[in-house]
């Protein structure tokens, strides 16, 4: 009997270390499916961040480099400049990209570096135990904001998709989520566009994915999904923030 649904070639057989209810697994799979569909596995280089996805290279079957905290966009720049024929993407969380690596992402985006960034936003530093991140919501309790994020002290949560799309150069900026099947379908479409644009030699693209962290939020996987819908999606609005002028939107 023919298989109608199988594991993408770009995904390895290794079980992931991600917590139950974490969305990294879904996002990894979408990236792998897109790489398979575009037939680019043999010329793709992924950049793993510091954070929960630092071991992402164990779960894919193509070349990978592991960056210093926040520096993935600089590392991707180095690769793409010397080997423009390679397909390069960074896979970064909110602490990595929006805090320590804010300088690197802004400048790589503004130079129009021809790589793709998958930005997984779950409002906390997952790997180190749920500390406050630049994207932590107003009033949200974390291990370093036990009384809730006080915006008088640390400002409002950073909206990365809006920030990057304010730059003139980037080609494609979008915010998606993978909470439900309909969102997964849309997110995959967005990820595919982002890689497709790179294959076509277009400028920088970023796909922000609003995600969960049940472990550090102290919620069950199901509660975490509801929490994202009730709290994150009203603030981090889904949608296309910047698209290449030449491309017709469907």
């Amino acid at each position, binding site marked *: 009997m023919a298989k109608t649904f199988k594991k993408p070639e770009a995904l390895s057989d290794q079980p992931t270390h991600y917590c139950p209810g974490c969305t990294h697994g879904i996002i990894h799979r979408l990236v792998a499916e897109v790489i398979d569909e575009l037939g680019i*596995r*043999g*010329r*793709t*280089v992924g*950049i*793993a961040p510091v954070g929960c996805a*630092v*071991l992402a*290279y164990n779960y*894919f*079957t*193509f*070349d*990978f*480099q*592991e*960056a*210093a905290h926040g*520096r993935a966009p*600089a*590392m*991707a*720049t*180095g*690769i793409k*400049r*010397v*080997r423009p*024929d*390679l397909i390069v993407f960074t896979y970064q969380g909110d602490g990595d990209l929006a805090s320590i690596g804010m*300088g*690197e992402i802004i*400048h790589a985006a503004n130079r129009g570096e021809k790589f793709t960034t998958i930005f997984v936003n779950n409002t906390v530093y997952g790997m180190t135990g749920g500390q406050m991140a630049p994207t932590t919501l107003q009033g949200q309790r974390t291990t370093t904001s036990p009384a809730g994020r006080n915006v008088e002290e640390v400002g409002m949560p950073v909206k990365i998709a809006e920030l990057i799309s304010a730059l003139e150069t980037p080609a494609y900026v979008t915010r998606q989520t993978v909470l439900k099947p309909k969102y997964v379908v849309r997110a995959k479409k967005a990820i595919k566009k982002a890689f497709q644009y790179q294959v076509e030699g277009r400028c920088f693209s970023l796909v922000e994915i609003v995600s969960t962290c049940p472990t550090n939020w102290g919620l069950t996987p199901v509660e975490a999904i509801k929490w994202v819908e009730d709290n994150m999606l009203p603030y981090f609005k889904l949608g296309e923030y910047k698209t290449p002028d030449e491309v017709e939107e469907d």
Partner: protein
Amino acid sequence: MGKILMKGNEAIGEAAIRAGCLNYFAYPITPQSEVAEYLSRRMPEVGGVFLQGESEIAVGNMLFGAAGCGARVFTTSSSPGISLMSEAISYISSAQCPVVFVNIVRGGPGLGGILPSQADYFQATKGGGHGDYRLLVMAPASVQEAVEMVMKAFPLAEKYRNPVMILGDGLIGQMMEPIEFPEHLRTEPSNKDDWATNGMDTRNSSKPNLVKSLFLNAELLEEHNVVLKAKYDRMKQEEVRYESYNVDTDYQALIVSFGTMSRVCRTVIDNLKAQGFETAMIRPQTLFPFPEAPIKKAASKESCQVVLSIELNMGQMVEDVDRSVQGKCPVHCYGKAGGDVPTPEEVIDVIKSFF
């Protein structure tokens, strides 16, 4: 090709191209910005890559990415910039990527000044970043030697899969001298298919390559550090370079000095000889690995009564000199850190004060 007159910084940029390195990432900082200015013009001419990064932090990690995917790559900077690159240098060392760094040292600490200095000796030789790593460090004393060291640095970095640092100073960068680019020092980048992330198609392989520095398992991290140490030990066996001056005499004082400062010391030795007083010098050309044995041997000479480490800092290399001499002779240091290079007369007064 005959000799041409060239400024140190421009000669360093040209030397890298002549060595076969066509990828350069950098951030402007005095006193080495001329390298970036020169290469912003030259790299497009030779089909190379020139990119001015947004900071030395970013540049260090651009180098990491580029070297990780197999490209021959280098940067130039000066002291505060090298501090910022030290994060990447630690990662690059651990991930075993070949990168060439040129530090045209300025005075420190902090912003310090823009005049010549050797105050980054510790940073270069003992590891400016975190963790147990070493760089292969070479110190030129002329623009010609800077050219040759830059050209030799690339095959050395690839031989050891380790960063190599050229430790110059503001004078080497800013001075114009007649130079020649030795054609025989041009080398082809080595084959990196067994480790670099150059794309599986590029190397006709179905096995992914991984460039990383994380080892969560204690045994694996131990093993990794043992591999690194074996490389540093091999450098100590195979890469020590130094120059001796006037060591065939019955010298009463032995000078150890490198780079720009060693040129003044040569004049000192000549002038003292004319006065009938013999001194000699060991000039380390590699600072790591350090010429320990030659210094010990020279300090052990019967006639030698004092060993002087003369440096453009408040006394850094003297610790390695002392370690090398192993009590065979008293070791002292004379140094200036403000940016004024001591005159021969000053050094002569210092030497005479011991007799």
